[in-house]
């Protein structure tokens, strides 16, 4: 099939083309109250095709582009699809860029777990049942396990041809726990490339504790407090900083941050400073791969150093447009650590406060990538004071990322999550809580 598509594209005398072949084999298993409800097998194969046609417009070269997808059953419509795509490409006038050349040198990135086999899901189910059985007052509401094996090959009109194979394991486990009063739930999600990183028993133990505590949780107080983030809230915390580093958003005039500018509080930072890398070669990272969406080799690229924007995150297209170095697409987000031990960050006395909130899960935490503003409902957290530790749930935490990061402390320990390597905890000295 690939040869057929390539041959058809070659005959069209295009400025350029790119094909990405994706073959996916998945196994999926679903438990309800510990019993198997459904087992699924999935096999798919498709081709993402991009065509590039250059023409003259007003004495200037412009690029027409069109993108389409072919599956095994749509291959018979290839020529018609190509005709339509060429027509569409003739209607748009974008700036010209060059596809990457052949002969790129790709890093060796560990993405595929050879330990995965047909029994993996059943073994995960058994491990989950056994781990939950050890937890007092906790039962399994729901568990879903997925294993994906994905082969990707990228080819372009300049002779670039690269391939990679990766695996993804995913679980979603929902525990129910009762201390007193109503039963409460806690949702645990986990996505990794390697079974050995899938510490199901430890995660269930942690989730069980949070589920039990949810039963005696209260609303937080209302006001401005020091707030420590760890766990899930870290996953999307840095997204506005990535957006402000994005060559695509810069070119599209959606953000306007200049190299050398301070992204955090314009020089007013009082705590630890922020350094960020796009790291596409971390072992086991979900954002790790040998190459990006244009076939550019992935690597580790400094974006922000001590709050200063050092490089734009630019794939080949936007690097050409802005005339900046090609960094490739975003890999994993790597945030540099601080110097404070994680254990100290949860001590309100460290920063002269009487009360500190430690948030471990939000209902949905999505900082605005343009403004940096965020607000989210607390799903699991703790109020820590001299009086003890009180679980909290409900109410919200609000802030503006650049202001919050201007006055924060980062733990010296780091944690690898799905696609971030970041300090295990980040203590914001002042965020707004809305609760009781």
């Amino acid at each position: 099939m690939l040869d057929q598509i390539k041959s058809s594209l070659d005959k069209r005398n295009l400025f350029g083309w790119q094909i990405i072949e994706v073959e996916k084999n998945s196994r999926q298993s679903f438990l309800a109250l510990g019993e198997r409800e459904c087992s699924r097998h999935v096999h798919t194969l498709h081709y993402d095709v991009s065509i590039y046609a250059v023409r003259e417009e007003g004495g200037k070269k412009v690029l027409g582009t069109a993108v389409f997808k072919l599956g095994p059953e749509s291959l018979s419509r290839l020529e018609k699809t190509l005709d339509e795509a060429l027509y569409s490409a003739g209607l748009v006038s974008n700036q010209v860029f060059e596809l990457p050349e052949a002969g790129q040198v790709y890093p060796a990135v560990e993405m595929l777990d050879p330990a995965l086999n047909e029994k993996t899901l059943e073994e995960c189910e058994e491990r989950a049942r056994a781990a939950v059985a050890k937890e007092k007052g906790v039962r399994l509401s729901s568990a879903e396990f997925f294993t994906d094996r994905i082969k990707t090959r990228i080819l372009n009109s300049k002779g670039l041809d690269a391939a990679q194979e990766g695996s993804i394991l995913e679980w979603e486990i929902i525990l129910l726990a009762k201390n007193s009063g109503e039963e409460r739930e806690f949702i645990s999600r986990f996505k990794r490339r390697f079974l050995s990183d899938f510490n199901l028993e430890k995660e269930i133990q942690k989730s069980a504790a949070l589920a039990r505590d949810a039963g005696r949780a209260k609303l937080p107080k209302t006001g401005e407090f020091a707030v420590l983030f760890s766990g899930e809230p870290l996953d999307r915390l840095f997204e506005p900083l990535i957006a402000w580093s994005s060559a695509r958003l810069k070119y599209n005039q959606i953000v306007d941050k200049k190299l050398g500018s301070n992204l955090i509080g314009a020089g007013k930072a009082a705590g630890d400073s922020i350094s960020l890398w796009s790291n596409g070669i971390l072992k086991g990272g979900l954002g790790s791969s040998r190459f990006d969406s244009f076939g550019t080799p992935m690597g580790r690229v400094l974006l922000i150093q001590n709050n200063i924007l050092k490089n734009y995150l630019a794939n080949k297209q936007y690097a050409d447009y802005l005339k900046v170095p090609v960094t490739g697409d975003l890999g994993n987000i790597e945030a540099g650590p601080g110097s404070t031990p994680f254990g100290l960050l949860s001590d309100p006395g460290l920063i002269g406060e009487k009360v500190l909130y430690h948030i471990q899960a939000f209902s949905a935490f999505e900082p605005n990538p343009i403004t940096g503003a965020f607000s989210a409902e607390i799903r699991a957290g703790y109020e820590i004071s001299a009086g003890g530790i009180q679980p909290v749930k409900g109410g919200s935490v609000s802030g503006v990322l650049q202001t919050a990061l201007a006055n924060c402390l980062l733990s010296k320990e780091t944690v690898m999550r799905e696609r971030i390597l970041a300090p295990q905890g980040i203590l914001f000295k002042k965020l707004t809580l809305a609760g009781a």
Partner: protein
Amino acid sequence: MVQSLEKKLPYASALYKKSSGTHLSVNRVQENVEQVDPSEGIVFTLWNGQSFFESSFDDFNWAAIKARLEDLAGLALCAVDPSKPKTDIDPGPPIKKDFYSALVLDPAKVPVEKKLNRAREHLRSALVADPAVTNAISIIGDVTNEDLFVNRNKVISQVVTRTDAVMAVYLSDGERNSEVHEGLSKNAGFEVAQIPEDKIKKLVQDGKALLRAERLKPGIYDVVVDPDWAGIIAHECFGHGMETDLYVRERALSRRYIGKIIASDIVNMFDDPSLIREAGGFFFDDEGELSSSTQVIKDGILMRGLTDLASAHKLKLARSANGRRESFSRKAYARMTNTFFSDGGSSPADIIASVDDGLYLKHATNGMEDPQGWGIQVEGLWAQEIKGGKLTDKVYSPVIMTGFVPDLLKSISMVGSDCFISGLGMCGKGHKEWIKNTTGGPHLRLKARLA
């Protein structure tokens, strides 16, 4: 194939799903024409009397399909636990029918150039509306979903076409940035792909007001919400919590409140996939159930849940057409469709005029459910001060609403007569399984904790 499989197993069905369409986006510096993630595939569902087994694939080689399904049937038979009872699945009443959604201008027959020009017109309106506009993204999209469902009693097909028109505007005053969006999504043709110029101008005005917006002081407020906010409240309060696959998993508190008062007696809420013109509408769900309206809340009383095949079978509940899949390669779950509060008797102007000191909320962006704890989170960009029954120029942004679902619903004191479903947005089950559905309602007056 279904007949052959049912010689070995109590139930089998097949679903063919295809989606295709175009997605055009233009902004000040770039234009893109793409196919809308086209996909085409089949999922076979087998029931061995105790659990489901499914195979999804996109290559239609007959010999390969037969071999794959024979393997799956073998697995299903081996998995039967002889110590446990077996049950039969009800295939539903016999029907053989083809369904088509109504179109005035079939997007497949509208030239791409015409669609691009429409998107460019919208873009121009936004770019010239105010010097603070740094850029805007104008999107025109269409997608046609074709489904064929087969079981021993049913051979049904449907073709449903949806058209979207969306405008996102980005503004800056040199210090601060803002972003707002507007648009519509309907199961209809290109005839609906139009955002009036006055709406785009208003959107830009709102974006400009957001540049000077302050953060809201946390507290409990007297609130009027617009139809988009009302819709997300409906969706997050008692949409997810009424999906009966959560009942099977014993993680929905609402199950114990069926037949009980959970909202103010002027509150009525529906989930209705048979509203075919709305973007969450269809003729039958991904498990072959014909669509109809489900009243979830009637005069403040919680009525019934939204079912998929597995949970309805397990709990012996009446089916509703809520068994939906993200694609042929994903499992069916109980999912919402078009979910909304229905009209009450008050005009929006009267509702605002009734508030002495409060806030008017619009530009809702997202929300999150908590079916077991009955917490709620709704986020948005706009809280406008109401003083003495009139809107002032003071705007706060962003804004988050949190609270305990029954408290929130019982506080609803006025329901507008202007129910509206915009159709923008998608819904996940937790954080995955993204599907198209809609939310809406009329203006509501209520009390809520905001920050």
